[in-house]
């Protein structure tokens, strides 16, 4: 990405600029944006993935903080600017990853437990008591699942020697990665501010979606002392000013990564949705200023909140296997040499030849939530070639998107008028066309691919008046491409029906273990 700097910087003015930190699952990045929302410079550094046991995933929070400082310095250096040119700093982060640290020394008491980590599966079942995984859904919008931060805090309190006593004595602080980065940026043990934003707090299983405050009943059910929790603030306001290398720069936004992408895609109106196509896929729909309960397997979450304005809620649906299915075709099957070649192979035939591929590699997620399902390729005949399978691979992503959009429609009553897309798979023209065909709605790609960082930059810029309002941000949004549906309605209905039939065949494969 270093080349971005050289090429882009030449065509930019002298600023001022907004910097955004993306503290992600595999790396930390810093991007500097100009007033038009164009990228001026990027710096990025990966951190270690720690796997102590099967199913466990940890990060060293101290390493992450070091990397964040390095990429911020690196991005400013590449842009050839100083802290005086940076009007505000925004933060977006991997969601749900949990760290606890000593308030006096700033030392983490345990490695951060990453969102993918499944060590709290058993604990979540236990916490469900006789109600099950929907015990806290009404308050939090979430099922009791190992992704979310609350059970991870509880695990550390139970498993790190003496931690509970220290936590109850007020010596320990909890944070998702936004809190950890902000506390350190604003001085750490020397007066760092201990805050989180509503979007990150909405992924803890501890925040009440309506009051936007920690829920005392849930805290006592989970046995988590309120003393460890950060103050919940909006997504766009000045939390404090940076100390050290960034001395004086306002730290002015925090958003979970998927919410930041929603913001960066300028989905500011009810009914607007974005879908990020990467290894997996995350689709968020803006549902306006009321949280919508889901009865179709979606999550209810906070989309964003700008300062003291009303919060904006979202429905979220995720697809576990999208880009990773293409990788599987490349690495496990050896049918293609690069991910991009899936399109070449798929383009060599007119249709799927009757084959349907449901990649339920670790069960079916939204809207089914069936852990007993496993992957299926259905409809095979002698006629089917690897090219038809390649088509079926791309169609799998399209139909799974359709299933989530249908579930969102049922829950919210909002009909999707168009889908804004981002992520690596948007370079696949055939896939984007197939999604437009499956949805019977236009699919639109924006000109800035880095919507996550852009969202954090936008929120920070709003907080300091760099941009006036969301209308100004909308005006920055540029359409790079749009795919319009071309599929005949009868064909679409028949294909969707076939897909649903294939989905049925994945269920019940894993038999109950005794």
């Amino acid at each position: 990405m270093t080349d971005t700097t050289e090429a882009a910087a030449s065509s930019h003015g002298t600023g001022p600029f907004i910097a955004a930190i993306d503290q992600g699952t595999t790396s930390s990045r810093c991007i500097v944006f100009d007033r038009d929302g164009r990228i001026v410079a990027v710096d990025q550094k990966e951190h270690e993935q720690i796997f102590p046991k099967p199913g466990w995933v940890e990060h060293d929070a101290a390493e992450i903080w070091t990397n964040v400082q390095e990429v911020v310095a690196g991005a400013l250096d590449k842009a050839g600017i100083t802290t005086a040119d940076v009007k505000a700093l925004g933060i977006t982060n991997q969601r749900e990853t949990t760290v606890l640290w000593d308030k006096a020394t700033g030392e983490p008491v345990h490695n951060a437990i990453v969102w993918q980590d499944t060590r709290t599966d058993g604990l979540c079942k236990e916490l469900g008591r006789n109600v099950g995984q929907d015990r806290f859904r009404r308050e939090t919008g979430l099922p009791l699942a190992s992704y979310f931060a609350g059970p991870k805090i509880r695990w550390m309190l139970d498993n790190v020697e003496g931690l509970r006593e220290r936590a109850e004595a007020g010596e320990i602080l909890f944070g998702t990665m936004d809190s950890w980065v902000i506390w350190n940026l604003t001085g750490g043990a020397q007066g760092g501010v201990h805050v989180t934003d509503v979007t990150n707090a909405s992924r803890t299983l501890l925040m009440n979606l309506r009051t936007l405050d920690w829920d005392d009943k849930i805290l006592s059910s989970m046995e988590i002392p309120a003393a460890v929790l950060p103050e919940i603030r909006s997504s766009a306001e000045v939390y404090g000013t940076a100390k050290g290398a960034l001395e004086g720069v306002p730290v002015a936004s925090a958003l979970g990564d998927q919410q930041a992408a929603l913001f960066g895609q300028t989905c500011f109106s009810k009914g607007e949705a974005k879908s990020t196509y990467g290894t997996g896929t995350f689709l968020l729909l803006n549902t306006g200023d009321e949280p919508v309960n889901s009865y179709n397997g979606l999550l209810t979450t906070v989309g964003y909140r700008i300062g003291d304005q009303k919060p904006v809620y979202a429905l979220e649906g995720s697809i576990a296997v999208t880009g990773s299915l293409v990788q599987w075709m490349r690495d496990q099957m050896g049918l293609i040499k690069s991910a991009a070649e899936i399109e070449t192979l798929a383009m060599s035939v007119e249709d799927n030849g009757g084959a349907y591929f449901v990649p339920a590699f670790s069960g079916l997620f939204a809207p089914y939530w069936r852990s007993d399902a496993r992957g299926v390729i259905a409809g095979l005949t002698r006629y089917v070639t690897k090219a038809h399978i390649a088509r079926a691979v791309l169609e799998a992503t399209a139909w799974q998107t359709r299933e989530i959009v249908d579930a969102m429609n049922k829950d919210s009553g909002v009909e999707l008028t168009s889908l804004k897309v981002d992520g690596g798979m948007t370079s696949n023209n055939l896939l984007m066309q197939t999604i437009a065909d499956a949805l019977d709605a236009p699919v639109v790609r924006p000109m800035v691919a880095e919507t996550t960082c852009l969202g954090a930059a936008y929120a920070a810029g709003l907080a300091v008046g760099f941009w006036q309002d969301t209308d100004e941000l909308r005006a920055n949004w540029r359409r790079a491409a749009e795919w319009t549906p071309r599929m005949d309605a009868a064909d679409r209905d028949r294909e969707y029906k076939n897909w649903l039939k294939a989905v049925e065949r994945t269920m019940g494969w894993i038999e109950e273990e005794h």
Partner: protein
Amino acid sequence: MAGSIQSVERAAAILRLLAGGERRLGLTDIASTLGLAKGTAHGILRTLQQEGFVEQDTASGRYQLGAELLRLGNSYLDVHELRARALVWTDDLARSSGESVYLGVLHQQGVLIVHHVFRPDDSRQVLEIGAMQPLHCTALGKVLAAYDPVAHSEALEGAREEFTPRTLTAVPDFEAVLDLTRARGWAVDLEETWDGVASVAAPIHDRRRMPVGAVGITGAVERMCENGEVRARLVAAVRDCARSVSRDLGGGRFQ
């Protein structure tokens, strides 16, 4: 073997010697096995090394076959890979130029559009991926014909239709345009394909300097041109983009 060139024969012999399985050989071994003077063998090895056909181990000084040889047999660049690599740069080109961006490759007798970025205004535009453009008069086509010998012969052999009064169809005129294109590294189309429309394009090369495609912008003459020529700022933006994509292809193409 009448007319064979001795140094090429010797280079081939060295490659065969190194190709015998997992092996690294020192200069002395190579020279004595092939009956060459050490200085001669060293000169040939150094040339092969510059071309990437041979690599020298820095610790032992021994020689082995280079990665470039593997690439020779595996050199086809997937057009969808090209699009994926070009995505960021072409978005930025559309932003900085304010015009629509096209990425084209040679396909049969014309230019196949493999990527298209909309002009960054709010107007309704239709995605033109998969469309064909003529070789002899568009900026993309001229770039391909100037740099890719296959495209060149296709353009010469094909019918060069006169789309507008400004279309050049005579061979000497066309060749002169290609000479100019090669000399300055970019091509223009000033209302030679569509009335009122100008375009400018530059070549994309892979790491071996092979032309793999062309990238360019297209827009209304009034916006694109000044005093009858494409604005220098736009030419520079197109060439920057082409260089960035080329650099990207050189970096990790065979990973």
